[in-house]
């Protein structure tokens, strides 16, 4: 039983991690928490469900279109909503992402509908038995996608010009501008990446947990919690945060109390923040006077 609970917790944690990475990438470059991110995840799942259930499209084209649509959505969110805002007015920017989130929810409700949908899993069959425990195939896809994504991000951030530029912007906006790196371009790329990752997370998650226009907030909060737990701005932190969150929830539900599983995991989060106010892997910005 313990083995299965840990395995389930880690796979759910992988989902939270996928969502958290989207928060963290936008935060690194734009320094705001994108409250619309949960809605990107929702949109990915909804569009995938719509294409496959209503139009009978095969899995992978439908997934590709759903993810593509999320990238475009994310780009629009940045260009129409945030691009021209005062960079230092964080709270106004956060409110815009909140408004955009509500807008996306409204759009999904109108164009796709209000039904709860379970689109098909990426591959048939399953679950896979792993030494006394089982894991659904779709969860393997999720874990695999997380691994591929982390590898891809690492390559992007450390081995490409674009990625290095984003890293520079995340460390120091001003200096990056002096070096000829455009914070705006980095922001565009960050948002597109967030759309890509969020959309992918949505399509991966929907066959397991359903797609519904109202799920964005729930998913967003879990992802945000994971990102904060690990330390905002660090993709590795997002993964660690996600896995810890998923594991805590699962172990609490299995051994302590399912009623208080969210409460226990959030108390743990608070406790960690009180000891490390910058999150587990986050770097503390030095104070300068």
């Amino acid at each position, binding site marked *: 039983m313990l083995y299965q609970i840990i395995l389930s917790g880690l796979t759910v944690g992988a989902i939270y991690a996928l969502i958290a990475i989207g928060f963290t990438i936008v935060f690194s470059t734009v320094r705001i928490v994108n409250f619309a991110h949960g809605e990107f995840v929702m949109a990915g799942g909804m569009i995938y469900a719509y294409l496959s259930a209503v139009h009978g499209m095969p899995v992978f084209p439908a997934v590709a279109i759903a993810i593509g649509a999320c990238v475009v959505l994310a780009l629009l969110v940045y260009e129409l909503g945030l691009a021209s805002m005062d960079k230092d007015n964080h709270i106004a920017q956060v409110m815009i992402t909140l408004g955009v989130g*509500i807008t996306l929810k409204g759009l999904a409700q109108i164009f796709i509908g209000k039904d709860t949908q379970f689109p098909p899993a990426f591959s048939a069959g399953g679950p896979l038995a792993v030494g006394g425990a089982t894991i659904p195939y779709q969860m393997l896809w999720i874990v695999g996608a997380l691994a591929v994504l982390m590898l891809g991000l690492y390559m992007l951030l450390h081995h490409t010009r674009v990625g290095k530029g984003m890293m520079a912007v995340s460390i120091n906006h001003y200096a990056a501008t002096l070096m000829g790196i455009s914070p705006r371009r980095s922001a565009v790329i960050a948002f597109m990446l967030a759309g890509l990752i969020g959309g992918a997370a949505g399509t991966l998650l929907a066959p397991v947990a359903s797609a519904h226009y109202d799920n964005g907030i729930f998913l967003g909060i879990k992802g945000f919690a994971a990102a904060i737990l690990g330390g905002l701005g660090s993709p590795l932190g997002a993964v660690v945060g996600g896995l810890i969150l998923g594991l805590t929830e699962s172990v609490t539900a299995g051994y302590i109390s399912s009623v208080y599983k969210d409460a226990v995991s959030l108390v743990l989060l608070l406790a960690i923040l009180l000891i490390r106010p910058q999150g587990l892997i986050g770097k503390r910005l030095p104070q300068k006077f």
Partner: protein
Amino acid sequence: MTLTSDRKLTIALLVALPVAAALTDNAFYKAVLVFGMINAVAAVGLCLMLGFAGQISLGQAAFYGLGAYGTTLMASRFGVEPVLAIAAGALLSMAVGWSISRPLSRLHDHYLAMATLAFGIIMFIVFANARSLTGGLDPGTSIAKFSIMGRDLSSMNQLFWVVWVGLVLAAFVAGNIASNQIGRSLLAVKMSAAAAASVGIDVVRAKAFVFAIGALLTGLSGGLYAYFARSFNATSFGIGYSIELLMMVVLGSLSRVSGAIVGAFIITVLPVVFENFEDYKTLTFGVTMVIIMKYMPSGLVDGILGLPGRLSRRAKA
């Protein structure tokens, strides 16, 4: 002294409310006004925390709930006079606000946002499951009609005045804070904690104070809500309300007490107006919010007054 212009606007709003109420016999419009004022009391609390001291709270609904449940418990279990029950609920909320402020004072920005969000969710779970105290999510709890010294004051007209007095009190205290050294200390903590400390302001104590007063006002609002709703359950105190409060404060104007009141009415009234759009109401609401924040990033009050940015109020001092 430096906030006289906003004080005038606040007073104008407070006076306009009874006038508006007198113009209609429609109990629904009155109920909207009353609910707007209840929200405004809570928003004024958050305005002090976020607008003045820069302490974001995404767990404000917890204080709202503490006020509502505290009031209900005092009134229903111990037969306490309603006004005193509301005071007790507000004080309970204040005590909790004060006691969480110390550990939270180490956190900043997004981390504080998450921590308060977590606090809000935890409290919601407690409200939903401490059934012997709260009645949980279903069937919830209920409270007797509002009265003073045995005199029934539960009609919408009478409740209007009760809640109005609550709002006037909240605005009076918040307006005073905004225009004296307490408000300046809070602003100082928000703008530079280091500099605030360097002029002798105890930053931790200032944060504790603002959490306490913010929780007190939001708790007061919760107590008023209990008498307004009479029957309610834990769903009223979820994250949704915390986010709505945040919208009220930011949409109105972060740096003004009047902004919180205006924002509260916008967030109370807009959904009622958009109700007629049926399926399009969520979309309309979202788009409206984006447009307001994009074109009036300092909030509607500053935007409409056409003054440049959040400091405009000071230019006239």
